[in-house]
């Protein structure tokens, strides 16, 4: 049992506490500590990725209690991958926040940022459903603070909606967890899966009901139809680095569906095997179509990017709903791509906003912004990646998902919806790009009370860095798809997961 498994959880927590003490040391000290911790997290998660390459599950017994009795942290390929994506995204978001002084607009940006990472990594690593609830609350409470960071009426209004919907979600989570505990008598994911396999016939209805209730909860997190209405305004109105970090928040919902539902209702679940998959697939298709309409109807660039995130979440839901190793492999590849690119696009939308004075990011003719050629070219690359056009990674992700969909009975519907909404998003992005970068007003026609800021080159590095992940995903497609393929196989082998968690022995003097 290696203590390394638990460090992605503890490192941000400890850093958060140190930052509270460092608060009187000024913003420079806080920035240095916070950034070092995030860099450390990247190195740590890379070590963890290489540690999982043997297909072994690293089970960490908290408090040295064996599995069904104590809480366990489980590290496998999937959780290591999620932790790595989170930390890479965090580096970009934090760099942008520091170089644009966003972190100075409120007192505790860095502390909340680290606690957010603590909650995210905890949710990715835990092997216990109630512990997952607790980590959800940790990451939500930190996200409430981050969402409201800085001020603004629209931000407060969107924040209120976000908090209320998530509190309702938490209540439903507890109802689902309580019902499952009442029937199964355990909360450890592996043990629950083992109990569901031998559950008597009369209990299956309750288990299925609680499972679907959990799907609603994760659907709120992932912004699945009809539970996505809070998401575009919350993401569009918060500060850019926070919105970029929140690109991973919707993926927490996707991860939870893969982990909890995939394990509980896996191959051994008898009648309940993958009973939730049609729901995920159907709702994913509806979400994708509505998201494409939202992309077309958006009035500003930030709102448009928020709907693009929704579209990528919907594509992931379709991939999860297809329920095959090939589809999951494609889903994970698309997940890496969509999270990092969505983060870059939120930051880019903020760069555009700063260069347009009073016109902000609204889709109307505005001033010719400083360095428009550079920003415009980067926008085009980002748009190509985001909408899934060749030669960047969005295209490969979509091709993989569509080729996996060919085996499904619904393949005609899936391919139609994905391609039509892809076309709508391409048209809308082309329109918004030409409105912002081509149809500019002459100097005399521009009326702006806010100054037009020159391009912040240091901050722009974060955008470029995150966008570079897209060509990198294409160039290194072979090793990356090999990894995601192995991950997908590991996820589908839920029997091995159950076996690994339940058979991990207590640490004694002898086996230390």
């Amino acid at each position: 049992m290696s203590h390394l498994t638990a460090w992605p959880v503890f490192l941000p927590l400890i850093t958060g506490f140190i930052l509270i003490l460092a608060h009187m040391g000024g913003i420079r000290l806080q920035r240095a500590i916070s950034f070092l911790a995030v860099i450390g997290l990247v190195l740590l998660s890379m070590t963890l990725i290489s540690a999982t390459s043997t297909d072994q599950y690293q089970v960490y017994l908290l408090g040295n209690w064996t599995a069904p009795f104590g809480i366990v942290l489980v590290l496998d390929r999937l959780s290591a991958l999620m932790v790595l994506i989170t930390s890479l995204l965090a580096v970009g978001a934090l760099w942008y926040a520091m170089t644009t002084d966003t972190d100075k607009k409120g007192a505790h940006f860095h502390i909340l940022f680290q606690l957010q990472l603590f909650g995210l990594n905890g949710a990715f690593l835990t092997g216990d459903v109630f512990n997952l609830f607790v980590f959800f609350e940790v990451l939500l409470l930190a996200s409430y603070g981050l969402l409201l960071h800085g001020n603004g009426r629209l931000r407060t209004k969107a924040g209120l909606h976000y908090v209320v919907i998530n509190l309702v979600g938490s209540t439903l989570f507890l109802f689902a967890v309580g019902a499952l505990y009442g029937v199964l008598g355990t909360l450890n994911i592996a043990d629950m899966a083992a109990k569901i396999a031998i559950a008597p016939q009369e209990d299956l209805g309750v288990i299925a009901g609680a499972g679907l209730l959990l799907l609603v909860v994760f659907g709120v997190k992932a912004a699945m139809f009809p539970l996505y209405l809070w998401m575009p305004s919350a993401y569009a109105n918060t500060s850019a680095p926070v919105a970029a970090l929140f690109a991973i928040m919707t993926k927490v919902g996707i991860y939870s569906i893969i982990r909890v539902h995939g394990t509980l209702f896996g191959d051994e679940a008898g009648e309940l095997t993958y009973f939730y998959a049609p729901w995920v697939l159907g709702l994913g298709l509806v979400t994708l179509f509505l998201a494409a309409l939202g992309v077309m109807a958006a009035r500003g660039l930030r709102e448009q990017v928020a709907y693009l995130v929704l579209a990528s979440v919907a594509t992931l839901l379709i991939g999860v709903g297809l329920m095959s190793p090939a589809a999951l492999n494609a889903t994970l590849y698309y997940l890496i791509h969509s999270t990092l690119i969505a983060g870059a696009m939120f930051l880019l939308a903020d760069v555009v906003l700063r260069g347009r004075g009073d016109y902000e990011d609204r889709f109307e003719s505005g001033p010719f912004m400083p360095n428009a050629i550079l920003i415009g070219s980067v926008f085009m690359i980002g748009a190509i990646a985001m909408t899934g056009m060749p030669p960047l990674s969005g295209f490969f992700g979509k091709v993989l998902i569509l080729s996996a969909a060919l085996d499904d009975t619904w393949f005609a519907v899936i391919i139609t919806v994905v391609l039509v909404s892809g076309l709508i998003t391409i048209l809308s992005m082309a329109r918004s790009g030409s409105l912002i970068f081509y149809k500019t007003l002459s100097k005399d026609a521009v009326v702006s009370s806010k100054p037009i800021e020159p391009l912040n080159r240091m901050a722009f590095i974060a955008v470029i860095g995150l966008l570079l992940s897209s060509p990198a995903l294409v160039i290194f497609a072979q090793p990356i798809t090999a990894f995601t393929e192995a991950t997908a196989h590991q996820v589908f082998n839920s029997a091995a997961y159950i076996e690994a968690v339940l058979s991990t022995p207590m640490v004694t003097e002898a086996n230390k």
Partner: protein
Amino acid sequence: MEWLISLAIGVLTATGVYLTLRARTFPVVLGLTLLAYAVNIFLFAMGRLTVGLPAVIDKTAEAAQYSDPLPQALVLTAIVIAFGMTAFLIVLALKARGELGNDHVDGLDVESNHASNKEAK
């Protein structure tokens, strides 16, 4: 006892849902609190309703009969989290009231809407 507990959970949930759907922030906060109460009792009941059974640590008790300690731990956690969240939500509602000028959940200017409706008539 079972019907009493289930009735209590049902009534609390129903009032909670009703209040959560109201248009003012304060009823929404109350509604979420009632929902949290309902879920706490629900979690308690999931350890099975028992009367007069010893705690699990009592070594003299027969092994087959003790009250389930886990739901109690779960309820305790849930209470603390719900308490903190309610406090946060109240502060946020007050902030929204201050910044948006009224306590409508969408921050609408209800008074002026009324006035313009009357004018339209």
